[in-house]
């Protein structure tokens, strides 16, 4: 809990103090109770405004269903009609200990793109499982996506314990099954919490029905999730726009990782121009240093020809621009991706053309193993893809630098987002 008082006007903090915002995504198979769990978290934390609660009660009364907490996030007409979640919903609430964004996502395989949308910005993922059915293909798919996206905290939430007589053996079976999956996917020792979203047991309040469970309720576990560790990575700043006014010339963008200070030697990539930082401005004024998350304007001593699309990085620790891009790709389009296809790649603030060189092994949701490479990548499939790009891209490994390791695949014609990729990174020898 540091760094809260000195940044009132200047925004000079570089850290995100423990206890700040936690973005939590709920994932898992359809009907495992994601929307109800989010509704339950909001409701039992007393975070539902009176008028919304009244509307909810009225709706429940009209349908004779009683209070249906899933309707707090399933706000679209089609969602209420079908009783499913189609698109991501974002809800905001806070406890005395922490602020949260709760991100509800669809469980249906056909809406995987919306689940990935919600998970891509999350700090923590709640992976829901119905204790009666255990893991499904969709649970394994979502677990693999959460692992690939690098969501920092993963909690397995074993739901519907009320429908399994609160029985420990049923819970333990799911816990064991998930343990094996987590190990396969490289998820570090995830916490496992038994709950009933429908009754509220062990969600906000501890449950008296499960005395055999030693851990605290779900909300307490979320409040305890550690904040991101101090950022000691080299700085990365994709240039969004160049600001000019009279003598003033600055490169505006958000610092995606690391810290920048006046005097730092930086290189602009892929052009390769070098310069020294003269000043860093943000909304509050000139800064002595600026860290990840800050939107700033960087002024250089030298007059470099830099425009949108360039990346500023420390001259001593910059990614090597390359035209060969390999990464794990999640494909969102009903039209399969094939070797030889041409599309656009968006990386940082740059967009360039690319051609698909190879499609590697695919993730198999039935076994959480790998299926041998095919000539094409189908809707919602996850596989390693190699691209050759027209322009050079300064790509980092996604594991180290999320913003400069991530890329989108876009349709050349209408610009639609067809897929998302997480770069493997390159060997740094060269």
């Amino acid at each position, binding site marked *: 809990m540091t760094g809260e008082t000195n940044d009132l006007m200047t925004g000079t903090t570089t850290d*995100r103090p423990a206890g700040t915002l936690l973005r939590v995504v709920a994932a898992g198979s359809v009907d495992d109770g994601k929307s109800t769990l989010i509704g339950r978290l909001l409701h039992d934390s007393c975070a539902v405004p009176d008028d919304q609660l009244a509307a909810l009660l009225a709706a429940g009364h009209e349908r004779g269903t009683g209070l249906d907490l899933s309707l707090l996030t399933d706000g679209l007409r*089609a969602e209420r009609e079908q009783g499913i979640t189609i698109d991501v919903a974002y809800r905001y609430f806070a406890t005395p200990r922490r602020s949260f964004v709760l991100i509800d996502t669809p469980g249906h395989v056909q809406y995987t793109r919306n689940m990935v949308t919600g998970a891509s910005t999350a700090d923590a993922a709640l992976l829901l499982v119905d204790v009666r059915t255990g893991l499904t293909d969709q649970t394994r798919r979502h677990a693999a996506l959460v692992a690939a996206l690098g969501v920092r905290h993963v909690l397995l939430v074993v739901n519907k314990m009320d429908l399994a007589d609160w029985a420990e053996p049923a819970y333990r079976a799911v816990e064991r099954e998930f343990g094996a999956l987590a190990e396969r996917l490289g998820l570090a020792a995830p916490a496992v919490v038994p709950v009933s979203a429908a009754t509220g047991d062990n969600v906000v309040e501890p449950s008296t029905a499960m005395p055999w469970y030693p851990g605290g309720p779900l909300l307490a576990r979320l409040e305890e999730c550690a904040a991101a560790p101090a950022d000691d990575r080299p700085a990365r700043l994709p240039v969004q726009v160049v600001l000019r006014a009279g003598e003033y010339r600055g490169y505006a963008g958000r610092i995606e990782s690391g810290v920048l200070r006046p005097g730092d030697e930086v290189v602009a990539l892929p052009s390769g121009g070098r310069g020294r930082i003269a000043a860093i401005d943000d909304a509050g004024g000139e800064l002595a240093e600026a860290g990840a998350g*800050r939107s700033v304007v960087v002024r250089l001593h030298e007059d470099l020809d830099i425009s949108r699309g360039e990346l500023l990085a420390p001259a001593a620790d910059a990614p090597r621009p390359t035209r060969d891009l390999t990464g794990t790709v999640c494909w969102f389009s009903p039209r399969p991706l094939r070797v030889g296809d041409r599309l656009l790649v968006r990386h940082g603030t740059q967009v360039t053309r690319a051609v698909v060189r190879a499609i590697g092994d695919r993730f198999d949701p039935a076994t959480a193993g790998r299926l041998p490479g095919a000539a094409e990548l189908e809707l919602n499939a996850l596989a390693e893809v190699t691209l050759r790009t027209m322009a050079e891209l300064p790509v980092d490994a996604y594991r180290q630098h999320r913003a400069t390791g991530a890329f989108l695949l876009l349709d050349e014609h209408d610009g639609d987002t067809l897929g998302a990729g997480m770069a493997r990174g390159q060997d740094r020898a060269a």
Partner: protein
Amino acid sequence: MTTLAEPPRPTLAEPSPRPPGTLRAPVRDGHLNDLRDEAIHVLREVAGQFDRPALLFSGGKDSVLVLHLALLAFRPAPLPFPLLHVDTGHNFPEVLAFRDAAAERAGARLLVARVQDSIDAGRVRERPDGLRNPLQTVTLLDAVAEHRFDALIGGARRDEDRARAKERIFSLRDEFGQWDPRRQRPELWQLYNGRHLPGEHLRVFPLSNWTELDVWRYLAREDVALPALYRAHRRRVLRRDGMWLPESPHVPLRAGERVEERLVRYRTVGDVTCTGAVESSAADYPAIVTEVALSRTTERGATRADDRVGQAAMEDRKREGYF
């Protein structure tokens, strides 16, 4: 400060609201800076990706905040887009005066598209209930076509409504200006994709992740100027549908209604005919922030007649192209 230390255990049959006097959200200043910098990042993406963007500006608190952030995002360079207001003809005169003065202070070009012009041209017809908010959509889309805007920046927030909670930050509209919630683009990380076909445009929402309380806390912290009707003032009002509507030529009295003077303020500002005031004595920023933090209703539930029409009122209007 009271806390939520021991909320009562609610059950399905008997939901328990927040205990009286508890604050809704303890928010830290670092959080406000994060929200500010996220919004600035989004606004710079608009400048970087579009040829003809515009900022929707009504003089309401959310659009005032977006303008404030846009000036920060591009200074010392001038604002790289004009302001656009869709004027229903039923606006509060003091808000229109504020709008003009704010645009001038910002050195921004202000374009006004008038619903009255659409009515005169036969593009839309006045509704029997006199509400003009639903008519704005046609005027707005006509302005998009006339000025060939490819992006419209709006102050909508996800916490306002369940349909808005489903909204992307960069949201594609087809050539009819329509939003199709089933066909929203995936939006990963903060890689906002503004590419589109000719005739299509995007709506961009830099305040997506702000709550009402965040907005007030930030405006208070930076002491941003707002139209005076957000502060408590005495006003001649009448009671209708559980709301205090202002005495106005646009709000003819119905049988049984009478005008009385009350101490009120506005939580949202829009069309005179459907924006209700709330009784309040909060006359400055600290008092307003406290009032909003203690509030147990949403701003829309409390003050907007047009949002009460049905469970999916906002979704239906968004589909048609409403902002």
